[in-house]
């Protein structure tokens, strides 16, 4: 959030329609995402109730747990889900492409993408992954072979959502509200139906009106994983009870009838969201893709390729919690990536950059003066150090000595020599280095010309190397010493799920 997005909210509130918060799309959107809409039984840690899942808008798979408190049926559900998810991920394990970078290798040419309605969907996925990935296909409480594999994939997707750079799994509400500002609070934006009401109201209706209507759980059922309490109390309860009783009294046609009734009821809660999800994808696709998105998606492809290999080679499942070293490594990495993504977003999107101009971390203006051929002879050898003076109306935080970067010339560093203010405008004298070719005269266009509109930011989108951490087996005494190696225990596989 920033003053600019808040202003956009204010404008949306006044006008009754959502306002753009970005000018380009900052997330990757797969041409064939896997939409996953889970419903959970209220009051339970992670009791799947039903799910609508599939990569074809025209052909959703409806999975139902007719008896949500029944362990065996839950695993049956997990197996059904595995069938869909694993078929989908497998479909990306065919064509390969060479990886860029220092150590060239092969990676899968594209990666899967999971779309859930909201952050709750991500949390549910993480828990479902947690509750299935330690299971085993043999021994006590054996489950279908696909179940633990599903668990590891779901965990993988959920974990990736913690990386600001990843698009492997997206929550529709997050993706949408990152690109549009509504006239309501971020808390309310977490309701997909309402959010879409703002962004994409039906003809003849303002966004505000559409949103208000969408708040009625009868008109647009909650997008999960939580269900509407009145649905639980007035519909679901009887339907589940009917199924249970029919089962006790020997199944047969009564059971089929009861189960069908339950399935219908759950379908009424899920199908509206299915439509919303594909509409959301469509809207996002409508935005032009930001320049850096492709590069970030490549990293996602690498991650996907690595994990697929890890599973294929029989590597262990993800641990319950991070060890000391992996926790520190993950934090450092996330911080690095977050900084990088923030910079990339600003460089790709003037509206995002405007937020930094607001705070003075960046400024834009026109080149008022330039010495493109200036050569610095003070050092051992003469070097090309052109100077430009940028005049701007923006606030400027940068102080002499600071190094700035321009989205137009990311490979070029600009050192602040002087900052002077005159009648409300600021003049910044910059000395340029790099990105001008080898000679003592700059390549054409490599130095901003007088009158050229330019923007300079206190941050660059350059790559910082990850910090080095000790190997996990060298965890020092300050952090509890080396952790025990993971050995799959029967206890893991046996863990109740009731």
């Amino acid at each position, binding site marked *: 959030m920033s003053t600019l997005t808040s202003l956009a909210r204010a404008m949306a509130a006044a006008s009754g329609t959502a306002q753009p918060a970005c000018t380009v799309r900052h997330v990757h959107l797969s041409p064939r995402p896997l939409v996953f809409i889970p419903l959970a039984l209220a009051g339970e840690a992670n009791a799947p109730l039903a799910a609508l899942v599939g990569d074809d808008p025209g052909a959703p798979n409806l999975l139902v747990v007719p008896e949500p408190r029944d362990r065996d049926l839950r695993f049956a559900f997990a197996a059904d889900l595995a069938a869909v998810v694993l078929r989908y991920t497998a479909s990306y394990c065919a064509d390969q492409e060479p990886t860029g970078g220092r150590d060239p290798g092969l990676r899968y040419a594209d990666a899967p993408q999971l779309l859930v309605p909201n952050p709750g969907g991500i949390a549910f996925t993480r828990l479902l992954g947690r509750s299935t990935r330690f299971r085993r296909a043999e021994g006590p409480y054996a489950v279908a072979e696909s179940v633990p594999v599903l668990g590891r994939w779901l965990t993988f997707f959920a974990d990736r959502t913690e990386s600001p750079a990843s698009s492997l799994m997206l929550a529709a509400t997050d993706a949408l509200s990152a690109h549009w500002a509504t006239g309501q609070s971020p808390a309310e934006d977490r309701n997909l139906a309402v959010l879409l009401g703002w962004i994409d109201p039906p003809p003849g209706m303002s966004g505000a009106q559409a949103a208000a209507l969408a708040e009625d759980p009868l008109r647009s059922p909650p997008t999960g994983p939580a269900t509407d309490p009145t649905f639980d109390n007035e519909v679901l309860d009887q339907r589940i009870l009917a199924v249970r009783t029919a089962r006790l009294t020997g199944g047969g046609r009564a059971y089929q009838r009861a189960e069908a009734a339950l399935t219908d009821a759950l379908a009424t809660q899920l199908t509206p969201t299915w439509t919303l999800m594909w509409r959301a994808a469509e809207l996002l696709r409508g935005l032009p893709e930001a320049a850096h998105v492709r590069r970030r998606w490549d990293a996602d492809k690498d991650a996907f390729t690595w994990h697929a290999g890890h599973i294929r080679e029989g590597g262990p499942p993800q641990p319950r919690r991070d060890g000391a070293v992996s926790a520190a490594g993950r934090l450092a990495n996330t911080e690095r990536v977050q900084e990088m993504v923030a910079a990339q977003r600003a460089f790709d999107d003037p509206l995002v950059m405007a937020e930094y101009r607001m705070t003075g971390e960046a400024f834009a203006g026109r080149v008022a003066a330039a010495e493109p051929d200036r050569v610095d002879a003070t050092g051992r050898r003469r070097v090309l150090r052109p100077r430009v003076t940028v005049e701007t109306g923006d606030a400027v935080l940068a102080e002499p000595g600071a190094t700035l970067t321009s989205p137009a010339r990311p490979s070029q560093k600009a050192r602040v020599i002087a900052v002077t203010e005159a009648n409300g405008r600021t003049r910044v004298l910059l000395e340029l280095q790099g990105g001008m070719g080898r000679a003592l005269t700059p390549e054409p266009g490599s130095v901003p010309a007088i009158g050229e509109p330019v923007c300079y930011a206190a941050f660059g989108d350059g790559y910082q190397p990850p910090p080095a951490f*000790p190997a996990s087996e060298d965890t020092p005494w*300050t*952090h509890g*010493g080396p952790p025990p190696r993971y050995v799959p225990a029967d206890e893991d596989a046996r863990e109740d799920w009731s």
Partner: protein
Amino acid sequence: MTSAAELAEQATATILGGLAGARRGLVVDSPPGAGKSTLVVRAAARLTDAGEPVMVVAQTNEQVDDLTDRLAAERPRLAIGRLAGIEYTPAQRVVRHQHVTLSTRLADLAGCPVVLSTAHKWATVRGAPAWPWAIVDEAYQMRSDLLLRVAGLFDRALFVGDPGQLDPFSAVQTERWAGLSWDPMQSAVAVLLRHNPDMPVYTLPVSWRLPASAAPVVSEAFYPFTGFRSATGPGERRVAFSTSPFGRNALDVTLETAASSGWALYELPARHTVRTDGEAVAACAALAARIVQRGAVTHSPERAVAGVPDAGTRIAVGTAHRDQAQAIRAVLRAGGLPGVTVDTANRLQGREFDIVVVLHPLSGRRDATAFHLEAGRLCVLTTRHRHACIVVARAGVPELLDAHPSTEPVHLNVPVKFPDGWAANQSLLAHLSQYKVRAA
């Protein structure tokens, strides 16, 4: 009753004595200005005297240079190594010592029984034999994950730090690690003690910096469990003004109050403002300027000559946000007072001044946030001064605190952090309210 000096000396003796028998090392909590650096230097000296090589870890080049300078002065014959990064520009106070070797590579410092550097630089050292001892300074500002990167370099360590100051911070979501004993977001000391609960923790009992007027207040608000006292007694630290005011405007009354009591609360009329509140900015600058104009002279028993804040170099203004600091700096520059230090709490950590003007983090706000409530922030701002602290705030801060919803999520197995910012703010405000001066 024993004198402050004796108390402090006893404590230091115990700590230095404790070094010998320490299995893994020990932790020393140091309230503001309690002689943390002195202890570090003496410990380093003591260990090297005993023939034990020592690596000294501090958090910033600034801190490393200070320690290097002081150690060099304390041990003129000791070969001292200053390990630095490539981008480091050597400080005069370091290079002037001939027995200090400066290098970017540890190999070049092989001959030095003691090597000082920043944690980040140490973290890049690989394959060196383990040091028998490390001294880690500002350990509460050091993050657990940074300690993880350097801890492999030493067998035992003396961790010194101020538990009351700002906690390590991260811009990313960290719930994932909540409750883990090695949560990378903890401070180095926190993670250390959770894995070595038997490690002895000492406290330095005397603040040399804070005056008698501040020690009890600060101690109660920010160090509820380990109290401390001031080295100087009531009235021993004085502020006098070489000129007397013409009228009695609010600024001068505030100065007088601060001079006589060590505290003052300059209260602007209640108003919700934008983050950089022009009036508050002006007030902070005006107060700082006025201190200089009035030729404030500070007397303290331990200093032979009275410190004269020439052009305000002994004066600082502290804020919560960078843009606030910048605005105040601009006004002071325009007013011909570039000497006055203006900075945020984060940057003022570990620094010391005679008189400090504080723009209260909650001044003019509608809602308090975790950031603005953080005990450490207020603690840093109100513990930089040797003589007096003037807090500038809009009226209504107590109401703001009372209206503050306390609904932060609670994570299991996470030790509760004390003091709680909300409570600390309440208690400090209660004290300040006695020294309130309403802006004219």
